């Protein structure tokens, strides 16, 4: 059915946190263990699926010069996190779908984005991608593709980037599992803590996280996409211009609320909100919102507002 309509076939989506604790020290805190179990459950579902590709959007891979896509067929390294280096190194040996990476870069360019592949031995694959791929696909059973999160990109650019992913999935006829690597609230404690004492940084962060989880559980992905600016203002440390994961996830999976959502775990990771969530496309619909922001198809670049202001 999906092929007949030239629509991509997305088996399900996963939203998961970038912190290395579930990979490196799941025993250090009961919550880390629950996140690890949730990752394991996702791994099993992936193994039982007929997926051809795991497509990852990682918020811990920032790019500046356009949108970068990993295209080295077999990246091998030992990654060490900048903050959590004391937890140990993360050796990896991944299998990348180079055809998809090249196709994604081309599809992004066709939609007006600046995009390029990176295929260099030793390129620093980010913590979030390493954690997700190690836990979700430890045997490289399914090839992966990793796309960066451009620091300056805002809503239009990010949505177009997601639509470009749909273009190439449909074109190559690949069945995909879509993975977004991102925290919910991302404020960590700024001091070292005993892992057993970990908790969400503030009540406000926890309240917002739980509200977001309600939306995820109800399958309201497009509603979350539309709430992204509120989420950014309320519970995101402003390291980048916007909270973008829900924009990309919705644009890639389909901009609607027809999903079966399942929150497998929600726990603190050094104060930030970490959740492992699955979204599976369904026929039903849920939601009570209508939207007035443009559903952009092509990225036209900056509008040169600053230059126009010179009188």
């Amino acid at each position: 059915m999906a092929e007949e309509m030239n629509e991509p076939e997305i088996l399900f989506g996963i939203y998961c946190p970038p912190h290395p604790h579930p990979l490196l020290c799941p025993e250090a805190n009961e919550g880390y263990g629950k996140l690890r179990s949730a990752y394991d459950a996702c791994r099993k579902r992936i193994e039982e699926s007929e997926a051809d590709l795991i497509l990852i959007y990682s918020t811990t891979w920032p790019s500046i010069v356009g949108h970068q896509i990993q295209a080295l067929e077999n990246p091998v390294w030992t990654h060490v996190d900048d903050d959590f280096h004391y937890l140990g190194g993360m050796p990896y040996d991944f299998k990348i779908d180079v055809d998809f990476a090249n196709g994604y870069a081309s599809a992004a360019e066709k939609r007006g984005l600046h995009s390029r592949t990176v295929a260099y031995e030793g390129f620093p694959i980010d913590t979030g991608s390493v954690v997700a791929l190690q836990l979700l696909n430890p045997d490289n059973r399914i090839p992966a593709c990793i796309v960066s999160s451009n620091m300056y990109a805002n809503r239009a650019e990010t949505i177009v980037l997601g639509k470009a992913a749909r273009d190439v999935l449909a074109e190559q006829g690949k069945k995909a599992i879509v993975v977004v690597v991102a925290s919910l609230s991302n404020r960590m404690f700024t001091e070292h803590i005993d892992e057993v004492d970990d908790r969400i940084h503030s009540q406000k962060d926890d309240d917002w996280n739980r509200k977001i989880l309600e939306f995820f559980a109800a399958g309201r992905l497009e509603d979350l996409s539309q709430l992204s600016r509120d989420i950014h203002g309320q519970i995101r440390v402003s390291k980048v211009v916007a909270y973008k994961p829900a924009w990309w996830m919705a644009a890639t999976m389909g901009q609607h609320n027809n999903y079966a959502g399942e929150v497998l775990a929600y726990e603190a990771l050094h104060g930030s909100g970490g959740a492992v969530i699955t979204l599976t496309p369904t026929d039903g619909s849920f939601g009570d919102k209508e939207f007035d922001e443009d559903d952009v198809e092509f990225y036209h670049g900056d509008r040169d507002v600053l230059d126009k202001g010179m009188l």
Partner: protein
Amino acid sequence: MMSKGEIVLGCLAPHPPHLVYADNPPQNEAYSEGGWETLRWGYARLARKLKNIDYDAIVIFTPHWQTYIGTHFLGLPEFKSKSVDPIFPNLFRFNYDLKVDVDLAEKMREAADEAGIITKMMTNPDFRVDYGTITSCHLLNPDWDKPIVTISSNRNTHYYSPEVMIEQAGALGRACAKAIEESGKRVVLVSSHSLSHRHFVTEAPLPEDMSLEHIYNHSQYVWDMKIIDLMRQGKSREVIDIMPEFTEQTIAETEGGGLIWMMAAMGHPDYSAEIYGYQSVIGTGNLIASWDPNDETREYVL
């Protein structure tokens, strides 16, 4: 009795990987036809000055080792690996082999800890040293014949505000100065960053095509010149005072805290900075400057 240690020079040393790429050192895998000579020749001039200074170690503060949980220090005697720039991997794939002054690093960490700063030694042998450290250190000392200490950038600007960053980076600078004094060592401080930092988000087909290089916008240029003018006048405190606004207006890399740290460590110099060069790299504003506390060797360079 051991003589007092001292800071013998402070350097503002930007780290666009383009400069190493343009120099074609054997450690870098990429090859270029040159480019950004104003900065590279300025670096060469400063490197020659350093060759004539007696010092034991370089201590560098880098915004590309970003830590959110306190300030971290490199804590193993040597690191050997390849650094690949995550933004410009086409330009910078540098095979490094460097030594660390662990004793000095530990003394600075202890002094910072005593000052109430959250700290951590980094002792994972697989840790990859950031490209900011490598670029600035290579251009200042291409022979790599001095040990270094890298200090991470604790992201207080993101987590709190530029004002909090100024307070904490200043406290760190004073703690490091105390540790250096007690160490008996002669140390060069390096603050590794650009000034204005809005990037172009596209890259020329030939990155070193200088016909396409210019500052991102005039506002950045004017702000950078304001900062440089204050440095020339020896008004380092005023530079720090206007830094929150400068950082906000030009998305400046000063947000990382390096210059604040170095100025505090040097007691906010009231003498002129030595200016070695200013040029844009992919739209960002880059200044090479140094502060020489020795009245007899301080120069008027540019």
